[in-house]
């Protein structure tokens, strides 16, 4: 079957329409990009999300539409499992484990018509790479022979028997994703790495060199969470119920935030806080009022009642609660902040009452952001533009503003800076950032100290 671009698009549309394993969540937001820059298929999530397809690979290895669908579902499940299992760095062993679980899910849920793609592609796969396809009739025969000869073991018999048990279990769904990942974390990945170098690449061609787990956009994360709630996770995860509730990327606990960071940031915020009637924090201020009732603290008032024929006015003092004020904050969410963003979020989560709402995130544009349960909900274009922040501050006219960034920003237009003459803007630069550009612009900078564990290393 010769699959052309129009046919491939129709297959994707059909898959979105039929929605097996809730794959619509990701596929429906992806533009299709036919390119030979990827070896097989790849999905990038962001703005815009894109499904990159090497059509020649599809034409060579997919004999029918079900094979193409299997390939697409494989990509979707790879994203879903990687994010739910929070695999930040992909190693060859983890990649094989994850792919084995994915291919087993496809085999169990969608049948042999779909997993035939994997059976063909990995037909000659050696050693542990056999996990990537369901057992064929020859493997079944070998498995039966291994079981029969258990009483008369040969060298390597035990290992092979264990391997076949795991292989059978993963395709029956009794060995789930968590078990396989645990297993592979313990394995030495050297053998797998060498086998992969010698043979053909994995479906999806997931690179494990420097390929960290991307931060999901809010809408993509919500879609994945929706997909998790839709599919039955039984046979995929040990605790399917917990996975269904969604646990995409947890922030570090606030307690782990370095104490110096918290005190430096709090001091900076205190300097910048301005009165705000909508502030969520209240502070008590002394106040007084007059009553015709005597009290011991206003002795002068008491004396006045002895000679003054009018109704006495005795001063009573009290305290009234007033909004404590807040500060407008702009948080840099560009790609260069990825490494420190979670720690900064945990830091800000503890100082939220003093941050004016909406709280703003910026990349090449300024957008509203929310920190909900320690997780940042916003979107980013990936770049950084200080001009966008200054233009926004000039437009919204806050009396004070705090920019949290790593300092890797371009120089803004001088006219923008001039428009902010009566506004006070300061910057908080992350521990690994650089204050130079901001200092050159005349923006006061507070730099977070290096965390002790990093400083020591």
């Amino acid at each position, binding site marked *: 079957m010769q699959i052309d671009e129009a046919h491939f698009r129709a297959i994707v549309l059909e898959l979105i329409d*039929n929605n097996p394993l809730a794959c619509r969540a990701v596929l429906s937001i992806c533009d299709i990009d036919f390119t030979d820059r990827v070896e097989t298929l790849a999905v990038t999530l962001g703005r815009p999300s894109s499904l990159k397809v090497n059509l020649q690979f599809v034409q060579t290895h997919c004999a029918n539409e079900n094979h193409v669908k299997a390939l697409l579902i494989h990509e979707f499940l790879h994203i879903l499992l990687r994010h739910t299992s929070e695999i930040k760095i992909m190693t060859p062993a983890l990649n094989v484990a994850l792919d084995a679980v994915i291919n087993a899910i496809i085999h169990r849920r969608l049948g042999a018509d779909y997993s035939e793609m994997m059976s063909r592609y990995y037909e000659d796969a050696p050693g542990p790479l056999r996990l990537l396809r369901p057992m064929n009739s020859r493997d079944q025969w070998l498995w039966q022979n291994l079981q029969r000869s258990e009483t008369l073991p040969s060298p390597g018999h035990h290992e092979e028997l264990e391997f076949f048990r795991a292989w059978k279990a993963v395709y029956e769904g009794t060995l789930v994703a968590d078990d396989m990942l645990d297993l592979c974390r313990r394995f030495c990945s050297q053998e797998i790495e060498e086998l992969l170098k010698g043979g053909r690449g994995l479906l999806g061609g997931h690179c494990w060199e420097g390929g960290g787990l991307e931060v999901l956009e809010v809408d993509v994360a919500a879609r994945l969470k929706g997909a998790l709630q839709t599919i039955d996770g039984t046979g995929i995860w040990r605790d399917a119920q917990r996975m269904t509730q969604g646990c995409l990327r947890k922030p570090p606990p606030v307690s782990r935030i370095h104490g110096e960071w918290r005190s430096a940031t709090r001091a900076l915020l205190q300097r910048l806080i301005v009165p705000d009637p909508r502030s969520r924090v209240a502070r008590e201020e002394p106040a007084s009022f007059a009553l015709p009732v005597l009290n011991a603290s206003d002795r002068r008032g008491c004396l006045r009642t002895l000679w003054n024929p009018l109704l006495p006015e005795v001063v009573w003092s009290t305290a009234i609660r007033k909004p404590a004020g807040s500060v407008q904050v702009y948080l840099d969410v560009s790609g260069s902040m990825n490494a420190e963003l979670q720690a900064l979020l945990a830091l800000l989560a503890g100082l939220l009452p003093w941050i004016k709402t909406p709280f703003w995130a910026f990349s090449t544009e300024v957008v509203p952001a929310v920190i909900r349960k320690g997780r940042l909900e916003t979107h980013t274009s990936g770049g950084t533009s200080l001009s966008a922040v200054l233009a926004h501050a000039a437009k919204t006219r806050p009396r004070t503003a705090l920019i949290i960034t790593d300092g890797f920003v371009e120089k803004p237009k001088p006219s923008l800076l001039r428009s902010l003459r009566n506004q006070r803007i300061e910057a908080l630069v992350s521990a690994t950032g650089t204050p130079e550009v901001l200092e050159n612009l005349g923006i006061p900078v507070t730099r977070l100290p290096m965390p002790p564990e990093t400083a020591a290393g």
Partner: protein
Amino acid sequence: MGLALNNCRQIIRASLLGAVGKRIACPRGLVVGLPVAPGGDYLAWCRRLLAQRGLRDTEELKSLPGLPPGAWICRDIPQQGPPVEESPADPLLHAAILGLCNPVFYSPRRPVIWTESRLRRRVELFAIGDFYAD
């Protein structure tokens, strides 16, 4: 006395589909399915039909006369069934309807999706109006 109950196997089958003259009814409409395509390549055959008719895009099929209006329930039927009278003569109309059917519903508001698996189906359509009218 008859057989003990645990030795009996009863199969109960009921369907609203095709019911005529009942208060709740989903009467049967068209039956669609393409004849066996030359070379078994339904997609290529349908694309040729599309080109012969001077249409460039499958979405243009929505303007074909005879396309059932509104949503219908669709059900797969065996490929080797007898010919049905309700079947339209134009094979391109069959292809258009099949492209507008997902596993459960037909709707002309959906995109026309032409894949081998959809074009190979043989389906019968049932009106849903009477079921939801009450």
